[in-house]
């Protein structure tokens, strides 16, 4: 039998790649996310506890397990083809059979397959008696692993067809030639030409918009809790448009920092371009949502204030230490390339995002109607008025400790 790298060696290599260079601080981000989602799950349990008493446990278990369908769809959209070997592996003796075995077994610890079971762990324990809850959780985990294997099989045969339809539509909307001059284009084109960025942005935007339209068109948005959720999705749509790129800071630029740093292009300019791209996308979002708001009898002040708040206020705040980032590999696609896929977001950015989103979602519940819109608008306008000196200040902070960041970009 010809020599091949063993399964154990492949697994060890994967874990070393995954954890290499990671410190305890890198755990903060995932822990914050888990605590956040567990908080949401536990809070939801106490909100719906009374309503659930009349639901048979068997039906509830079936509902839980049906979440695997959502998991499957998410993977179909977001998970990349993980079956491609990188150059290092391709040039080593690995039997195809051994590689396939590794790909299948490694699905059991694959992060996307663990996400839903981990998030829903407290729900399984709270909503069911212990042993049934455990059985539901194990069932969910196994379904997620199965989904991972199925999606891997589907994806390795080529790009999932519906992706192309959506992307083609998007590319026609933002034809590269129309996205601005060459320096501004660094922002818009990095978004449009990287599947990793584009998919997340496009699908999340569509998800929030469709949910908003769904709530609105069924008349659920008229009042009460459903109105809150309708507004939740509307705000989420604006947040995705304006904030998503800001969360990466200068991570995208860090991948080609030599091209920027050795040329007369200032960090201030790059940050301002990020801000204006967010504002432009927020503006487009506003144009898209305005007809629906009119249709659903929602005051136009609401989407305008959301657009101002997310683009003018949230986006610059998230860029406050944009330079403290991990280079984001726009074209990364191989199995062991976790660059940009893990540890890209800093804990402070994740926390900041949730705080800003929390304010966006919570304030209308506390101050319904025009007062919350007024506050959002004022905050947004402050951002638009002061963004230039603000980004000049951010640039000065970067320059003060520039080598720390430059050397970090070059070492990764």
């Amino acid at each position, binding site marked *: 039998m010809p020599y091949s790298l063993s399964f154990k060696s492949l697994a060890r290599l994967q874990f070393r790649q995954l954890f290499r260079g990671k410190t305890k601080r890198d755990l903060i981000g995932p822990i914050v996310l888990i605590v956040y989602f567990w908080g949401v799950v536990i809070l939801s349990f106490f909100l719906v506890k009374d309503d659930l008493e009349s639901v048979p446990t068997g039906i509830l278990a079936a509902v839980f397990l049906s979440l695997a369908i959502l998991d499957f769809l998410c993977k179909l959209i977001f998970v990349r083809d993980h079956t491609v070997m990188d150059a290092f592996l391709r040039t080593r003796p690995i039997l195809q059979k051994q590689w396939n075995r590794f790909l299948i077994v490694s699905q059991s610890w694959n992060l996307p397959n663990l996400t839903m079971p981990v998030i829903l762990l407290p729900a399984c324990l709270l909503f069911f008696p212990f042993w049934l809850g455990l059985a539901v959780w194990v069932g969910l985990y196994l379904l997620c692993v199965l989904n991972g294997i199925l999606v891997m099989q589907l994806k390795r045969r080529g790009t999932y067809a519906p992706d192309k339809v959506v992307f083609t539509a998007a590319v026609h909307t933002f034809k590269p030639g129309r996205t601005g001059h*060459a320096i501004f284009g660094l922002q818009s*084109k990095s978004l449009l030409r990287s599947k990793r960025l584009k998919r997340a942005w496009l699908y999340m935007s569509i998800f929030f918009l469709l949910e908003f339209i769904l709530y609105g068109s069924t008349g659920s948005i008229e009042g009460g809790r459903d109105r809150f959720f309708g507004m939740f999705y509307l705000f989420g749509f604006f947040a995705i448009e304006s904030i998503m790129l800001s969360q990466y800071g200068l991570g995208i630029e860090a*991948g*080609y920092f030599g091209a920027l740093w050795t*040329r007369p292009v200032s960090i201030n300019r790059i940050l301002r371009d990020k801000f204006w791209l967010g504002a432009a996308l927020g503006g487009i979002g506003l144009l898209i949502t305005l007809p629906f708001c009119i249709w659903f009898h929602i005051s136009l002040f609401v989407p305008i204030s959301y657009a101002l708040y997310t683009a003018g206020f949230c986006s610059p705040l998230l860029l406050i230490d944009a330079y403290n980032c991990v280079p984001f590999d726009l*074209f990364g696609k191989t199995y062991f390339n976790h660059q940009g896929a893990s540890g890209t977001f800093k804990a402070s950015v994740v926390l900041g995002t949730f705080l800003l989103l929390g304010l966006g979602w919570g304030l209308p519940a506390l101050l319904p109607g025009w007062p919350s819109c007024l506050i959002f608008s004022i905050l947004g306008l402050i951002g638009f008025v002061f963004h230039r000196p603000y980004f000049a200040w951010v640039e000065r902070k970067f320059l003060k400790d520039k*080598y720390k960041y430059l050397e970090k970009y070059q070492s990764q």
Partner: protein
Amino acid sequence: MITLSHLKKTYGGVTALDVPELTIGDGQIVGLVGNNGAGKTTMMRLILDLIRADQGYVTIDGTRVDLYPVWKTFTGSFLDGTFLVDFYTPEEFFDFIAEAYGFSREELAERLRTYETLMNDEIMGKGKLIHDHSNGNRQKIGIIGAMLVNPRVLILDEPFNYLDPSSQIVVAKLIREMNRDLGTTVLVSSHNLTSINDLCDRLLLLEKGKLLMDKAHVPGSIDPELEAYFLEAVK
């Protein structure tokens, strides 16, 4: 003029570069040679202010590069792939450079004509992102990107890597012409001694961060001392 004063850089206690004094005069074509780990790229990164010097500083035209970024307006450089914007097409990348340095599209088109031989109809108008070009073409795009700004100072790290022999000859010719016509000061590193011998009028030899040799050179001739050094290194 580029000057290095008491310049020192260490990584984890290992000296990557230690050059007490070095001056590169205007209009010189300086070849930087040395085996792997000699400190060539480190020297270039320090000149381009990409890394912090543990001691000393670099000046270009009398101005410290770490304090005043004015050098960026007249310096062209290409060290590695991070000097390329991968998600741009070559046309867009050159547009970006033109915009950053403030010259018009007409001027850009005019300047690009100089590099048509090097591009060999393989780079422009292909609709391919730089990321999707071959290593050789990426190298050409990087070199053109550095030279396109008609720099007073040109810094190229291993410019002959990945290039076919014809392109190596063209690159060397373009550097010589730029030096002759614009008086550009050139610092070029390479493991290709033939190209360095053909191109440079001054040779610097680095070993483990120290400057072992600094001598004038007649372009086109072979330096026996340099040949002897590398032959000795493999014995």
